[in-house]
């Protein structure tokens, strides 16, 4: 986790690529779960990823969430290893239940010779 520098959540975190501990791309930071706002000490509790989260991202987001099936995946902030241009995670995407769309599609693509 970045500590020395300030991090602009809107520019430096939201909508960025998620990469797991094996370097696999596994979704984007679709939204953030914040806590402690009422207490005046807000902190990021988790990264949220998945189609249902898009509902909170404007009109087009609501439309997209309505069309695309899928679940919300919550990645606790403790699982974040490092924030570069991508958000690097401490575990594999399977352990975090991310990137399952690619896993599902792989079962089909694998059947084609040469894949």
């Amino acid at each position, binding site marked *: 986790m970045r500590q020395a520098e300030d991090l602009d959540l809107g520019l430096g975190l939201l909508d960025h690529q998620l990469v797991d501990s094996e370097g696999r791309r596994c979704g984007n930071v679709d939204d953030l779960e914040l806590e402690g706002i009422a207490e005046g000490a807000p902190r990021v509790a988790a990264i949220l990823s998945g189609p249902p989260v898009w509902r909170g991202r404007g009109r087009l987001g609501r439309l997209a969430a309505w069309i695309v099936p899928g679940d919300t995946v919550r990645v606790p902030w403790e699982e974040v290893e490092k924030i570069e241009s991508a958000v690097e995670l401490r575990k594999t995407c399977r352990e975090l239940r991310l990137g399952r769309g*690619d896993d599902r599609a792989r079962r089909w693509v694998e059947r084609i010779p040469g894949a």
Partner: protein
Amino acid sequence: MRKIFQIALGILAAIGGFVDIGDLVFNIEAGAQFGYQLLWVVVVGVVGIIVYSEMCGRVAAVSKRPVFDAIRERLGFGVGLGALASSQVVNLMTLAAEVGGVALVLQLLSGLPYRALIVLGIVALAVVIWVSPFEWIERIFGYGGLALLVFAVAAIKLHPNWGDVAYGLVPHVDTPDKLVYAYFAVGLLGAAMTPYEVYFYSSGVVEEGWTPKDLGLNRANALIGYSLGGFLSFALMITAGALFLPLGIEPEFIGTVALGAQVPLGQIGLILALVGILFAVGGAAIDTCFSGAYNVAQYFGWEWGKYRRPAGAPRFTVAWVVLLVLALLVIMSGIDPVMLTEYAVIFSVVALPLTYLPVLLVANDRAYMRSHANGRLANTFGLIYLVVILVVAVSAIPLMFLTHQGQG
């Protein structure tokens, strides 16, 4: 030495790969209607693509983020989704037009029926993409496209008035059809600055694992590759200006383009021109198809890349296959590839700011780019071109309607 050789090979491929169906259509038509008057627009367009592709390549090499990642990060989910949708529509139209172009050239070479050749062309492209390594695809189509240099020879053989050609490099309007002139200026700019080129290029930079050490190579690729590609555009427009304008021919078919080489150079000119068009347009079809898959995968954060086997990036693979199938359906409907090309280029112009603004913003972000952020030169040009792009984007559709697609 080996490195220099590699760079030379890459640049050769870039020259052959610069020209696509949009450049062919707009350069030839502009030459046939206005002679050499619009040559200066080619210069403006080529400088623009050099500026922005250098920027995209630099962002990709330094931050490992290709263009569509930057678009979503800067425009947010909603506007980013709009950018994705519009770029995919343009990509699909371009892809369908390129496939139609491939089929038309194959038809001229073989005499077989057009629709059968569309299917054959699509299947051939799919097989090439599936089995060949990335570098091969780039090289084969890039080198094949170099056959288009036949138009440089043709242009010289046609003995244009070189004084008029030189005057064409100076912006001037010498025609009563000012709106048609403006329409072609917009089209030529759009054809030179087609955004799929930067989607494709920046994704390639990430795939090949370039680092800040490769920034020199990035600069050379952009500067030399696109300048020489612009040279091919010149050759096409001069050929059309010297041959079609005096005869009053309005080239409405891809085959007419090849005539430009056949008249001065005979059979061998015709064959080289057709082979050049086949490879240039076929290669562009692959680039466009990949760009579409890159964009959607990057927007949604899926695994992507041609260097992974198809099963290593499954949704990316599905995306390019779906794009090819959709392009097949579009072009099989019988729509004219030349007309489709014009629509694709004009619509791409409208969406240009959504691509280039986020790139300019990210290239200036020091948290992202550290010491490799834009310098004063890149920013001056970047801003000037952003203004040009905005003006052109706003005027593109009205001009298309007012001039009935350049018919006056």
